[in-house]
């Protein structure tokens, strides 16, 4: 049998979930991120910024940051499915959304936004997507949560929450309304725990149920 392996956390793979950060705490964290970003933009003298959220959770956060910073360019969306490094392991991600970049990114300063930074593989993939669109002047990384488990030399510039978690613990943003950060534990020795390979978007796991053919 070939198990359809979950690439990320889905209800059922996690023994117990609880709210780790509620809507108010997330709103406060986003406000902190916006203020940190303002300071960073000021310090580096960045102009004509373009903000890009990574599907799906990153877009929710980017949407709020974009409002609070009052950026003039529309928000960009990035889907990294075609650049994931686990395609050769788990096949095609089931849900693909179109990437949308409102303007050319050549020589632009970009703010890349994601919900959770864990292994760093999502950001690696996102940077590869961006560089197939053009050559940005610089990229700043803002993530709502940053947790233990980095596998690549990638560090965020602006962070909402820091989390010390064990390897089998998971956090995931649920949204878009209300935004809640959930926390749970993958049972040790489960297929889900064994197959977890890095890419930390909690947005959509592979469906574990086989598709039925039309009778």
């Amino acid at each position, binding site marked *: *049998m*070939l*198990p*359809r*392996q979950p690439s990320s956390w889905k209800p059922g793979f996690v023994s117990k979930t609880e709210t780790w950060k509620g809507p108010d705490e997330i709103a406060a964290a986003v406000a902190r991120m916006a203020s940190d970003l303002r300071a960073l933009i000021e310090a580096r003298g960045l102009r004509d910024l373009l903000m890009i959220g990574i599907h799906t959770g990153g877009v929710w956060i980017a949407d709020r940051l974009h409002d609070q910073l009052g950026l003039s360019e529309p928000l960009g969306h990035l*889907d990294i*499915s*075609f*650049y994931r490094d686990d*395609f*050769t*392991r*788990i*096949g*095609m991600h*089931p*849900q*693909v*959304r*179109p*990437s*949308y*970049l409102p303007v050319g990114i*050549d020589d632009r300063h970009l703010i890349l936004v994601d919900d959770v930074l864990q292994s760093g593989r999502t950001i690696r993939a996102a940077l*590869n997507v961006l*560089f*197939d*669109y*053009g050559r940005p002047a610089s990229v700043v990384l803002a993530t709502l949560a940053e947790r233990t488990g980095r596998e690549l030399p990638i560090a965020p510039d602006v962070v909402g929450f820091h989390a010390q978690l064990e390897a089998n613990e998971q956090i995931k943003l649920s949204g878009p309304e209300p935004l809640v950060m959930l926390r749970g534990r993958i049972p040790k020795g489960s297929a889900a725990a064994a197959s977890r390979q890095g890419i930390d978007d909690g947005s959509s796991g592979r469906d574990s149920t*086989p*598709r*039925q*053919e*039309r009778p």
Partner: protein
Amino acid sequence: MIPKSQESSQLDAQGNLKHFLTIEGLSRELLVEILDKAEGFVGVARQAVKKVPLCRGKVIANLFFETSTRTRTTFELAAKRLSADVLNLNISTSATAKGETLLDTLRNLEAMHVDMFVVRHASSGTAHFMARHANPHVSIVNAGDGRHSHPTQAMLDMFTIRRHKGDFSSLSVAIVGDIMHSRVARSQMLALKTLGVPDVRIIAPRTLMPARIEEAFGVRVYHDLTEGIRDADVVIMLRIQRERMNSALLPSEHEYFHLYGLTEARLTAARPDVTVMHPGPINRGIEMDSQVADGERSVILEQVSNGIAVRMAVMSMCIGTQNLRAQSIGESHA
């Protein structure tokens, strides 16, 4: 019709697409998944580097035993945009012309570690035959077999319809032309019905209409063009092969155009926002007037661009399923 056991051979045990041979037997969910994936691939054409790394290191062979321009080139471009290496086999100058059998050609190319074959052949069932005999790690994509099936064409047509109409559940779609010999029409009818189009109409002279097709496909049959396209949301014109004139199925090109050629005047019977489609290549002045073909309701060139995205979706899904399989074999050996 292909027996059930062979129909399902294009899916693996988990219901993932392994080969893409026919629309028959595929669920609505899977067809929608193909359309959704294709939507993601449309944007690749807007990238400065029009490539994604999904099929890096894979070898895809285009095996065309029948002539084709559009289908072969869009398959080739799709494979290249997925970063695969592409082999185009020119059959007229290849070993087949020297008498090599199809299976020997397959075995030889498999020995060169080809991961996917895109096959077009004049005989119905060729792609199924190859899928049955191919090595387990190899995928077959049907690019047209005889009168049977041309599933990627049907899916790019569905994709084009969805982009223009949004939703399939209240559409009237008319298919006009040589239904009898058309693998495109068969695949389109299956795809439209699977996706939930309530009103599928086929329009053809009696000599080009297969018997009892209403029952087989759940479509409505018309022999009059104006009546058939009345209030249609989408009109799909099929190519008329000139050979049909010689085989006495049609009296003349002139008479066919007179009765079944789509003109601006005839098109007024359809809905004002009707979308006109054609899989190409068009015979101007036989199945449709240039005014219609180049008119604002025609999406014929868009169909060609959409073909690349849809073929990328199908090929990457099949390669993805190969990867799943390779992974599980690796695990069981570990």
